């Protein structure tokens, strides 16, 4: 073991530093998914409004977010905001914003489609019973919408997690950078550190992505 330099990992904060980059990426995707699910329902409800201005604005938002590659959006959120508004967003905040914007748009479009697929008679039955608009939405329309949405939402979540691997890549770069520093610092004492450290990074990356891809596959099978 000595020869491969694994012991370098356990020195000081080295291992914690490696894991940090990975955890950031996972956290970004989880927070973004959470925001998207809630904001997407509101967005979807908004998209079914007949008001032409609201329609145009939501359509513009949806198309913009869809057409732009995520990398461009990340770039805009990270550097653009600093440049134009003087904000100093951290990489993590910028990523959460971009993925939440994207997820909200996608979720909103799904919710809109599901809302529109609810037969008009369901609205009318609710109204005829004396339910007001809010009650009708909350107790009659929304529960049916969410039921219809479940498979598509799971699909969206898995897509989001997969796409967040863009950020996972950033996390890996981060990990590699840390790894390099660790290797440099120990070059004299443990010449083989490079091998052990890189191998660990590889295994860690695999361990982070594997369960996600397994989960995605299982969910896809279950809901398709």
């Amino acid at each position, binding site marked *: 073991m000595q020869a491969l330099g694994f012991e370098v990992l356990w020195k000081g904060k080295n291992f914690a530093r490696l894991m940090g980059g990975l955890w950031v990426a996972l956290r970004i995707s989880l927070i973004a998914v959470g925001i998207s699910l809630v904001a997407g329902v509101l967005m979807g409800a908004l998209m079914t409004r007949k008001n032409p201005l609201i329609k145009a604005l939501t359509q513009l938002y949806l198309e913009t977010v869809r057409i732009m590659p995520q990398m461009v959006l990340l770039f805009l959120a990270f550097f653009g905001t600093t440049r134009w508004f003087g904000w100093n967003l951290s990489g993590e905040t910028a990523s959460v914003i971009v993925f939440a914007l994207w997820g909200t748009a996608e979720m909103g479009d799904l919710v809109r489609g599901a809302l529109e697929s609810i037969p008009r*008679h*369901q609205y*009318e*039955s*609710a*109204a*005829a*019973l*004396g*339910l*007001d608009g809010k*009650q009708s939405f909350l*107790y*009659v329309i929304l*529960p*049916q919408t969410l*039921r219809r949405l479940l498979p598509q939402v799971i699909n969206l979540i898995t897509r989001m997690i997969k796409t967040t691997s863009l950020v996972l890549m950033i996390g890996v770069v981060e990990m590699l950078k840390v790894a390099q520093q660790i290797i440099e610092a120990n070059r004299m004492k443990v010449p083989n550190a490079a091998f052990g450290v890189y191998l660990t990074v590889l295994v860690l990356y695999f361990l982070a992505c594997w369960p996600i891809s397994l989960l995605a596959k299982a969910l896809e099978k279950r809901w398709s």
Partner: protein
Amino acid sequence: MGREILRIEHLHKEFEGKTVLDDLSLTLAEGEVAVIVGPSGCGKSTLLRCVNALEPIQGGSIFLDGAEIHADPRKLPQLRQKVGMVFQSYELFPHKSILDNITLAPRKVQKRSREDAEAEALTLLERVGLADRAKDYPRQLSGGQKQRVAIVRSLIMHPALMLFDEVTAALDPEMVREVLDVLLDLAKQGRTMLIVTHEMQFARAVADRILFLDDGGIVEEGRPADFFDHPKTERAQRFLNTFTFETVKE
């Protein structure tokens, strides 16, 4: 007859410039059962939908128990509680059990307690022979059973007026009877009802008054025996004739 429940005055209704109901007036007294008949597309459904403001109207006024229906949209939910409506296609909420379908409106709109609402729901279900299906979901019921539940769901709100729009039209023939029996029972209890139907035998049995609707207006009205045996207008005669032909053809 008792107090006036429904008064329609000079109702005018059009869809994108096409007049469907023209200067239609009608009153219904408490406990009265009026059956609307008429050729397809003459505006029967539209008339019922105007009564509980599912359709906006372009002229005239509709009063329910003295209150004008189309006057203030904010008062609509309040007013609609007084009007029960059952549609042609089964419109139960598919994600809710039978019991929850029935108790949703009394609990959320009238703020009644769950115990109270469920107790009454079960009593009403008992009366239409479905007490044992309370925990089931709509998809587990036949069309006729679903329509009976839909009727109960309206009744539990204690409406002053019930509207029925061809509630048996989508049913298999063997289920028509069980639903019509419920309506006949309601008529016996003295409910005020406005019924649209193509079942002429039933119309004759249940109605205090027949309204023959054609070309956007009430062309003829009268007691069932008079209307069916001695229709006065030529249009009503023609309408009833097509009916006997259709019946024979079957």
